[in-house]
């Protein structure tokens, strides 16, 4: 098409104009906010699943002398938080079953496929609340996914698929960051990202907490080293770890990085810094604070005022379980306060 332009910038201009005429008092339909929130959550979840599969594949690719007890695939299912559905559909946790279940299975409500489908159908319902870049990212991904689904994949092809999923999330997230108006629509979409991300990071820690406990037998053995780095890889933090701590990989520091370090974008503290910020922006814009704001601030304060040693003393597992519960509760509060 030689002399034909799509006029993407015009779309943006139209969106900006709409905001002025449509919502002088900054109100949006609860359903629209709800969809924006869930679009982001599902995209974030799809990326997280891809990361788990990627890290697990690496771990199981090691020669068995370095590898673990052969429970890596089971652990992947646990980390994804869908052991019940998996047990019902497959039973045995081997590479093929787990990859299939977490990637394409229609029986798994949180498979990568279903996450992308749900993200897209939520987006479609509120199409005009998204920018065309965001929509194109999701819709393009959905069309592309059907091509992947039809293929028989070897490991190499599957790795390409996982990279592609991570890329979809990057493009979507980048589109939102670069093209969305900074108003409540953007804030709800960000809340979705960070609530989901906090949940994901906490789940990894919850499944792997025993790996991080300091008193396991062969501390410093190669097995531990690879288990630990797997945790870091799952959240894309291996390089970050070395930059932050400039030390060999140690469980305590890994936990510190993923829980308390605000420089680490996937840490629980960083997620709550953002959650609290976006909730405050909403509260200011709407002129009303509510239980969501109070709850987020409380969690942020407790993450700021604690030390990783204290957490270990009180029990890492207990801490993380409590966090997951609190984070879910905040999700529910946000829904009650704004989205229905």
């Amino acid at each position, binding site marked *: 098409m030689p002399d*034909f332009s*799509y006029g993407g910038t015009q779309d943006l201009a*139209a969106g900006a104009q709409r905001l002025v*005429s*449509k919502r002088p008092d900054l109100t949006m*339909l*609860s359903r629209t906010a709800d969809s924006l929130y869930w679009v982001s959550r599902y995209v974030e979840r799809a990326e997280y699943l891809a990361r788990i599969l990627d890290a697990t594949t690496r771990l199981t690719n090691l020669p068995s002398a370095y590898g673990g007890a052969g429970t890596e695939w089971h652990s992947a299912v646990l980390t994804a938080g869908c052991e019940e559905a998996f047990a019902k559909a497959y039973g045995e946790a081997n590479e093929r079953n787990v990859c299939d279940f977490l990637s394409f299975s229609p029986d798994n409500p949180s498979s990568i496929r279903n996450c992308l489908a749900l993200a897209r159908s939520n987006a479609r319902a509120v*199409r005009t609340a998204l920018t065309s870049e965001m929509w194109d990212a999701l819709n393009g991904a959905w069309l592309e996914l059907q091509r992947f689904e039809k293929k028989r994949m070897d490991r190499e092809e599957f790795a390409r698929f996982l990279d592609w999923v991570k890329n979809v999330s990057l493009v979507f997230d980048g589109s939102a960051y670069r093209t969305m108006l900074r108003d409540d629509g953007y804030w709800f979409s960000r809340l979705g990202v960070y609530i989901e991300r906090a949940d994901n990071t906490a789940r990894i820690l919850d499944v792997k907490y025993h790996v991080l406990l300091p008193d396991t037998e062969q501390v410093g053995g190669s097995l531990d080293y690879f288990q630990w780095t797997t945790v870091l890889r799952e959240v894309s933090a291996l390089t970050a770890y070395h930059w932050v701590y400039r030390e060999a990989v140690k469980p305590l520091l890994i936990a510190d990085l993923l829980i308390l370090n605000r420089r680490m974008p996937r840490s629980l503290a960083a997620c709550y810094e953002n959650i609290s910020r976006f909730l405050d922006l909403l509260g200011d814009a709407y002129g009303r604070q509510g239980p969501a704001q109070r709850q987020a601030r409380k969690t942020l304060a407790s993450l700021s005022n604690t030390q990783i040693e204290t957490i270990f003393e009180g029990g890492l597992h207990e801490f993380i379980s409590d966090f997951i519960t609190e984070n879910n509760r905040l999700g529910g509060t946000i829904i009650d306060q704004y989205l229905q």
Partner: protein
Amino acid sequence: MAAFDEMTGSGAELRPAYEALDRWLKDAPPDMLALRRSQAELFFRRIGITFAVYGDEESTERLIPFDIIPRVLTKPEWTRLEQGLRQRVTALNMFLADVYGPKECLKAGIIPPDLVYRNACYQLEMVDFQVPHGIYCHIAGIDIVRVDADTFYVLEDNARTPSGVSYMMENREVMLRLFPELFAMHRVAPVDNYPDQLLATLRSVAPRTSAADPTICLLTPGQYNSAFYEHSFLADKLGVELVEGSDLLVRDDVVYMRTTQGPKRVDVIYRRIDDDFIDPLVFRSDSVLGVPGLIGAYKAGNVTLANAVGTGVADDKAVYSYMPEIVRFFTGEEPILKNVPTFRCREPEANAYVLDNLDKLVVKEVNGSGGYGMLVGPHANKAQIEAFRRKLIAHPDGFIAQPTLALSTCPTFVASGVAPRHVDLRPYVLSGANGISCVPGGLTRVALQEGSLVVNSSQGGGTKDTWILDA
């Protein structure tokens, strides 16, 4: 029967409105039209794809074919048409106010009362209810066909939720992008002020109790409705919220939207949901698309529905045949737009003629007579005709019949090159407390198959941009 061609009349002449277009078509390099057509398709596919029509398992929707050669009408032709449309829509609104109010036209014998009373679209809930500002049909789409240089017929009035206006606007948009040189050669009346006019119309009919700046929303059945693209397109252009039934709630006879800041009052609802589904407490109780209590709020005068409930009684095919009398009765004027000659099979003499000429006529069922379908005599086989004959004898009330019309043709770019294809026209007429308005032109639909008279998009019809030359 040779049809009137909008470019060449009976075939020999070149009608003045098409002179520049004809020159341009002759000068155009052979592959240019094909190229532009594929660009136009890309454009539509992109906005279609944007709304996920394409590649969706659950949707059977496709792109409606677009023909790049515009259909051209002159200013005098349009002026006459517009007068006729204003007159017709005025009469439709007066008719509706009458059948739901004093019923003068029934008392005067203009139309048989049972045609109204037995019609399922005659909503009893609306009887003796004063709709806000007395307007029922705020948005009408009147289907017009042309048979010669001077004669336009109304084929059908659409008084419920007429669709297609987004195609009128998008067709113009793509033409402006693809053929700037053509617009330089013609002075074409713009259509892009339609959303402004629609918004002004909707604002003008807000309940008198509403705030100075009424809140308007567009109520859609949702993303799986075939016209969802149009709903979201219009909501966006109007700058109003696109809501589904579940986004609205009714408390103490006031309608609210559920927003992130709590309930927000709604004053005017441009609804694209049929009467039957709009309130499960009053109409179909199995409807999940509607808003429980909406009719209560409407009747309390706290919200305006556009169009009003119950407008379907005015566009019924049996009522249609009485439109000339209805226009005369309510406006005191001769109808400017003619009806297609129509045989009312409920009248024994007419039915006798219809039964004798089934092979030449189009027989259509009227509303509420239960799925008997339609017979196109010239294209039907003996068995189909006999089957219809039995239906007509058993239920003469359920049918009307019309002669097959030679719809006018327009040059159209098809596989074999540029060739004449039959067209109709759906202009959109807006009625508010601020008066009647009508954007020049409308949606031209074209039957892409050679010889076909069926312009419906569901049966292979396409659309064209419609130009009213402003000089």
